């Protein structure tokens, strides 16, 4: 999703998020957290994006906490947005989000990490987490691939993350993005050929098209092609559960449509 390259953000210096959090009275933060947790997934995503883009970093952080708690991985948060021009502070906030995700959903990962400071970053108390994260980020001068290596992140964990991705994962994301339009057109052509009925009108056709395109994208993430794993990714991306049987059935239809249109995935 992002270049992860060293800082190219000449216009903005690095500001520690921990300092911004400390500048807000604890009771105000708690009150804000109480408001945030009342939001549903879609509201959280919409508001996170707005806060992130507008540089409302403390508020974006509170949304990020809630999204992580709700099991929505960071790669979903800014899905579909161009992230090439992120400032150093926006990249740091995404780095923190990735770490928060790993801390919450891979609780034993610190045990496989070799470096002591990285272990503290993954398993230490909140104030240590912020301190070590700032040290590791090095004001944007340390590239993402180095952080990925230091944290010994698995391929699956990197797919969950927004910023912490190796060159291999980024290439696969770029390839998926490049293919998306052709795949979309192939699936659109296929769905147009389906006869409309009283129970399958334009709205249903559009929903089917979106579901198949998302499943295709999920299948690009899951190297093993496991329908269970693809179903998990689908739920992470959309918030809607899907059975592994439905995944297998829908992906077969996607493959047939792509073969017909001679699109290779």
């Amino acid at each position, binding site marked *: 999703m992002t270049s992860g390259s060293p800082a190219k953000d000449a216009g903005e210096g690095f500001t520690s998020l921990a300092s911004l959090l*400390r*500048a*807000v*009275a*604890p009771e*105000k933060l708690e*009150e*804000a957290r109480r*408001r*945030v947790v009342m*939001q549903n997934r879609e509201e959280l995503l919409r*508001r996170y994006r*707005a*806060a992130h883009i*507008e540089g*409302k970093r*403390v*508020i974006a952080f509170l949304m990020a906490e809630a999204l992580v708690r709700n099991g929505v991985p960071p790669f979903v948060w800014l899905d579909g947005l161009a992230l090439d021009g992120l400032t150093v502070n926006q990249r740091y906030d995404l780095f923190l989000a990735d770490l928060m995700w790993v801390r919450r959903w891979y609780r034993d990962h610190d045990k496989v990490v070799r470096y002591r400071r990285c272990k503290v970053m993954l398993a230490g108390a909140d*104030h240590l987490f912020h301190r070590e994260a700032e040290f590791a980020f090095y004001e944007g001068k340390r590239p993402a691939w180095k952080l990925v290596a230091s944290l010994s992140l698995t391929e699956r964990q990197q797919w969950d993350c927004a910023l912490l991705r190796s060159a291999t994962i980024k290439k696969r994301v770029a390839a998926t993005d490049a293919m998306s339009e052709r795949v979309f057109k192939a699936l659109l052509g296929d769905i147009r050929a389906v006869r409309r009925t009283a129970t399958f009108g334009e709205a249903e056709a559009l929903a089917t098209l979106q579901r198949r395109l998302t499943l295709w994208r999920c299948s690009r993430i899951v190297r093993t092609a496991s329908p269970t794993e693809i179903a998990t990714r689908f739920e992470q991306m959309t918030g809607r559960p899907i059975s592994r049987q439905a995944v297998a059935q829908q992906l077969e239809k996607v493959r047939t449509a792509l073969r017909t249109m001679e699109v290779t995935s």
Partner: protein
Amino acid sequence: MPHKVNFDGDTSRLYEQLSHLTGLTPGELINRQLSAHHAEGHELLALVVAHPELHEEAANLLQSYGPEPLLVGIKRIAPRSYLTLAERFEHKMSEVMGKPRTAF
């Protein structure tokens, strides 16, 4: 950055006992307790940045600390239109979330 702090007699005895109780050093204890008051310090500095002419009055709030809460003192000396950091945060929250249903 390490700082050397001299406690008065009562404070010194208190922190020795608290240190014995918790296993934390007096420095660690003070850091923990002070972190709850960081926001007040930031509020004072933000006021001086926005209104340098209030430098002396702002400094006096801390020099004569208590019993008036620092934030109350800041509101007392600041221009009526001045928004504290907490108020600015609430405004930003409202922009993103809409108005709260109850008073913030």
